[in-house]
C-alpha cells in the first residue's frame, strides 16, 4: 500500500540520520533501560507493602508497564516527531512545500518524522510484556490476544488523532510548541491502572487526554478484564476520532490557505 511505501522511505531517512553515530545507540539503550528500571523499582517499593493494587496483581501491573513502554515507543517513534516537525514547519513556512506535493498532506505530515531509537523502547516494552505474561502463567487465549491487538490499534488511532488535533491548533495559534507536552505529562499516569484513580481523574485520562486508551485498555484486554461492550466502544471511539481529526485538519488547511469559511 502506498502509505506503507512512503512510511518505509521516511523510516530509511530516519535511520540514515542516526546510523553514523554508534555511540548514540549505546546511550539510548542506557537511557531506555534506566527508565524501565525506574518504573520497575517504583513498583517494587509499592508491592513491598501489598500484594494487590486494586484488583491488579504485581505481574499484571508489570504487564501494564510493558504496554506503557510499547505504546510510548510507538508514539515516540513516529507520532511525536512528525507532529513536532509539522508544528515547526507551520512556523517556518516550509509547510508550503508539503502542500505542493501530489500526496495527501495529512499523510505526509504524519509520517515525516521518525525517531528510530524508540524501537528500543518498543522492544523493551514487548520483552517486559512477554516476561510478565509468562510469570502470570496464564495462557493468552486467542480472544484475549485478538482483543489486545485490536485495543492496541484502536488506542494508537485514538492517540494519533488526539496528537493531530493538538498539532492542528498551530494553524490558528502561533505559540503552540508546548501544547504537545500536555500529553507527555499526562502519559506518566498511564503507568498505573487507570481504574485506581478517582472518578474525575479517570474521566480526564480517558476522555480529555486519552491516556487510558493507550495503556490501561490494551493491558485490560490482555489480562481478561474487558467485556465486549468496552472493546466495541473503543473501536467506535477510534473511528470517530479519526474522522473528527481529519475534518479538523481539513478545516486547518482551509484556514491556512485563506479559504473563506
Amino acid at each position: 500500500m502506498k502509505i506503507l511505501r512512503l512510511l518505509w522511505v521516511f523510516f530509511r531517512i530516519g535511520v540514515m540520520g542516526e546510523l553514523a553515530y554508534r555511540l548514540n545507540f549505546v546511550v539510548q539503550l542506557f537511557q531506555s533501560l534506566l527508565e524501565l528500571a525506574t518504573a520497575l523499582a517504583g513498583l517494587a517499593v509499592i508491592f513491598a507493602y501489598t500484594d494487590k493494587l486494586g484488583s491488579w496483581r504485581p505481574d499484571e501491573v508489570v504487564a501494564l508497564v510493558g504496554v506503557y513502554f510499547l505504546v510510548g515507543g510507538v508514539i515516540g517513534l513516529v507520532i511525536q516527531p512528525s507532529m513536532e516537525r509539522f508544528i515547526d514547519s507551520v512556523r517556518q513556512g516550509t509547510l508550503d512545500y508539503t502542500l505542493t506535493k501530489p500526496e495527501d498532506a495529512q499523510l505526509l505530515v504524519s509520517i515525516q518524522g521518525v525517531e528510530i531509537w524508540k524501537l528500543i523502547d518498543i522492544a523493551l516494552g514487548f520483552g517486559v510484556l512477554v516476561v510478565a505474561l509468562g510469570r502470570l502463567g496464564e495462557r493468552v487465549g486467542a480472544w484475549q490476544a485478538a482483543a489486545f491487538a485490536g485495543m492496541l490499534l484502536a488506542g494508537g488511532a485514538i492517540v494519533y488523532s488526539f496528537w493531530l488535533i493538538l498539532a492542528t491548533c498551530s494553524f490558528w495559534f502561533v505559540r503552540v510548541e508546548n501544547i504537545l507536552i500536555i500529553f507527555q505529562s499526562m502519559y506518566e499516569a498511564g503507568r498505573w491502572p487507570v481504574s485506581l484513580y478517582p472518578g474525575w481523574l479517570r474521566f480526564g485520562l480517558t476522555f480529555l487526554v486519552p491516556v487510558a486508551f493507550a495503556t490501561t485498555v490494551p493491558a485490560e484486554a490482555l489480562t481478561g478484564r474487558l467485556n465486549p461492550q468496552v472493546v466495541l466502544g473503543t473501536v467506535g471511539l477510534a473511528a470517530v476520532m479519526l474522522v473528527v481529526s481529519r475534518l479538523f485538519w481539513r478545516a486547518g488547511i482551509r484556514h491556512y490557505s485563506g479559504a473563506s469559511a
Partner: protein
Amino acid sequence: MGISLPDSPIIHIHDLHKTYVVSEREAGIRAALQSLVHRRTERIKAVDGISFDLSGGEIVGFLGPNGAGKTTTLKMLSGLLHPTAGEVTVLGHVPWKREKPFLRKITLVMGQRNQLIWDIPVIDSFELNRAVYRIQASDYRRTLDELTQLLELGPLLRKPVRNLSLGERMKCEIAAALLHLPQVVFLDEPTIGLDVIMQRRIRGFIAEYNRRSGATVLLTSHYMADVEALCRRVVVIHLGRLLFDGDLSALVERFTAHKTIVVQLGDCRDDLSSYGEVVSCEEGYVTLRVPKAETARVTERLLADLPVIDLTVEDPPIEEVIERVFAQEAV
C-alpha cells in the same frame, strides 16, 4: 480536466483579488482584554485585481517591491492560497483545488526556505521526492543524470545538506524541485543571498532547462540581473496592481523620460549645466541627464561647441527605472 489546447494559455489569471483580514492588537494586558470584547480588524489588499496570461515555454519575470503581492500571487498560482475573487487556471486546473494531477505538473522553489532534509545526504531527499511524485525508475535516473551534469552536482549528492554551502544548497534545491519534470516552474527569489558567480550559474541553468523542456517559468526576483538575463517579458506589480506587462525593453522605453549622455572632455573645468542636468564629473567624464526628446539636439550642441573626445548616449540603469516605476515617477 487538464487538457489545454495548443493556443490556450498555460497560466490564465483574470481579475484576481486577495484580501487579508488582519486583527489589530496592541501589547499589554488591557489591550488583550479589550480585544476579547471588541475585535479591531483591518483589510489589507495584497492583490487588487490583476490579469495576465502566460503561454507555454515563456520565462516571465515578476517584479515588484516587498509587499507588492508577488509571493501572494505565486501562492495562488501554486494552490497554496485561495483567491478572494477572480479566476485562475494553470494547465487547465484550478490551483486551489490541489488536484493530484495538477500538483504533479508544477513545482515551487522558495529562495529562503529549504525542502531538502537537513541531516541526510542530498540523494536521499531526492529519493523521497521520487517516491512522492511516483517517478519511474528509468525516468528518474535519466533526469537525475542530466540535472547532475547541468548543475555539477556530482560531489554534492552524498553530502548531508547541512554540510553544503548556500550556493550548493540552492543548486540541490532546484534539482530536487525538477526531478519530476514539471511543466510549470514557480521560482520565488531563487538567487537571493548567493554570490555573483553562483547567481550566473543558476540563471544559465534555468535558461537551459527552459530550452530543453519547454517548461513555463514564472520567476520573482529582486535582482535585475536575473530578470535581464532570463526574461524577455516582465510583469510589474506594485501595491497589488499591475503596472506593466510586456517586453523589458518596452518597460525601459515607456518609463524613462530621460537619457544619460556621457561626454569625455579633457577635464572638469567647464560648466555644462546649460546643456542639461550635470549628474557628475570625474576625470574628464561628465555625465548629463537630459529629457529624452532633447537628446539629439543636446548631442549636436555638445559636439559643435566643445572639444569632445568621446560621447555616448545611454538609458538610465534598469534598477533606477524600476524604482521610479514603483514610485510612479517617470525617470
